[in-house]
């Protein structure tokens, strides 16, 4: 696991565009206010967003980096509306300013062999970091494939973008797109031997993926969530139990090799 010691910033970014992908998901694209270059960010890292105007939101909210568009100097955040904070954030309009601390956390690691078969598995809003990871892998000369899982066709987001980066497989629980079932039941897992799996999504899904990976001796990295207060390793609120004891998901994570975790799988 690479521990990214990158300089962090507190930035006021401007909403460039907002797209309602679905009544529960919003894609916000941000840029700097005066055209300065956005800082470097790595796939798997996240930002801590300050939510103004929500009386019940006291702390910042952690949101994965969905994509960094170097050309248009844009940072994309894909937001699922779950509570007051994310709902308020989704009300931001083009031109509005949002305060963020970024980039936070470590990042996904890359295999040495560029010919490795790589599978990026995203479930629900867990697809968010997979887009930037896929793009980065492709830029570096890898050939990523994607496996996206969701409840139904409506919940499969950014499909076009994923398809442009590599082979994209789909499962939906109701069978409305791709294969019916969970990601770990997709037939591609029987057909292709992957060398590396990256995954982000609901914990039960990630645990199922981790179990599959372990059983098949596949190197696997997961992106964990946790309740966060500071996001920078200062408060020790966001610990995950690992073979090295309690470590902070916000600093030593959110990306963990499954061999480091003490998951019962």
């Amino acid at each position, binding site marked *: 696991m690479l521990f990214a010691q990158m*300089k*962090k*910033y*507190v930035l006021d970014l401007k909403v460039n565009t907002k797209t309602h992908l679905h009544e529960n998901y919003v894609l916000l694209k941000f840029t700097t206010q005066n055209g300065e270059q956005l800082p470097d960010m790595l796939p798997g890292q996240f930002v801590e967003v*300050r939510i103004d105007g929500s009386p*019940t*939101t*006291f*702390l*910042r909210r952690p949101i994965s980096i969905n994509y960094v568009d170097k050309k248009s100097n844009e940072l994309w955040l894909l937001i699922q509306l779950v509570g007051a904070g994310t709902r308020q954030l989704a009300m931001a309009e083009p031109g509005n300013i949002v305060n963020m*601390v970024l980039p936070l956390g470590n990042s996904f690691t890359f295999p040495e062999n560029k010919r490795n078969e790589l599978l990026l598995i995203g479930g629900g809003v867990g697809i968010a970091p997979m887009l930037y990871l896929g793009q980065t892998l492709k830029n570096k000369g890898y050939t990523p494939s994607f496996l996206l899982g969701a409840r139904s066709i409506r919940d499969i987001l950014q499909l076009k973008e994923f398809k442009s980066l590599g082979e994209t497989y789909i499962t939906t629980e109701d069978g409305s797109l791709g294969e019916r079932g969970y990601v770990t039941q997709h037939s591609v897992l029987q057909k292709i031997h992957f060398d590396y799996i990256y995954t982000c999504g609901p914990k039960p899904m990630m645990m199922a993926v981790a179990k599959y990976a372990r059983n098949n001796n596949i190197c696997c990295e997961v992106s964990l969530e*946790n*309740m*966060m*207060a*500071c*996001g*920078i*390793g*200062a*408060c*020790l*609120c*966001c*610990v*995950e*139990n690992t073979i090295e*004891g*309690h470590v902070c998901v916000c600093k030593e994570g959110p990306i963990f090799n499954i061999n480091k975790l003490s998951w019962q799988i």
Partner: protein
Amino acid sequence: MANLNVEIGNLKLKNPVMTASGTFGYGEEFADFIDLSRLGGILVKGTTLHHREGNPYPRMAETPAGMLNAVGLQNKGVNYFAETIYPRICTIDTNIIVNVSGSTIEDYIATAEKIAQLEQIPAIELNISCPNVKEGGMAFGTSCKSASTVVKAVRKVYPKTLIVKLSPNVTDIAEIAKAVEAEGADSVSLINTLLGMAINVKTRRPMLSTVTGGLSGACVKPVALRMVWQTCKAVRIPVIGLGGIMNAMDAIEFLLAGATAIQIGTANFIDPQITIKVIDGINAYLEEQGCDDIKDIIGGLIC
């Protein structure tokens, strides 16, 4: 620029703004955001004699205008601090103060003795008020007798500035402050967190693994300010005020109530640059009010 210097015992602070223990890591975590040397002081993480894993997850819950935490003094122990962390941070040009926690008097003594040997650490803050550990010190902070006992013991082995951090979970905090003053504490800091709780109604389970945890943030400010005011009237040693300070005006309320210095905790999570803004804000206030020395407002409440 008004004169912001204040003194806590032998400790000289370039300004009254410090960071609260457990909310600012070892300072390093904030080096990207602010110039650490501008701070009056940094209170590093609660340090114990031995390595502690802290409490299980979940350790945090958001509450109205505040948060609950149940970190439980996770740290690698005083030796690790002295060997690995101290060399890295001792060059920061500010007062680095170690928050010392323990479960027994012997632990407190041993830890304080170790810290006393670190030349660049001019003071310790004795945490007799951590609510998140069974024997985490809060028991010491909730009676005059036990508070006196531990302060007396540590005072014997610790010659530098000794700050005692008090628990707000008591009937009469000023009494406890007087008791530790009598045992030779150079200063008291207050408040530590209020003991609180939250429940997830969907799962019917507590939000924290330890059921109860420490409440901090804006919501506790009125209680903290009241306790600081009561304590300032009761003791002669300098009082360090904290609890819910979110901006310069909040800090000034504590100074007016009599605090010689203040600490900023939870607010660092919401704005990593808040400490500097508070220093600048205090200065601006002094200029507005036509004061050229911070001492003109300390204890300046008219009532």
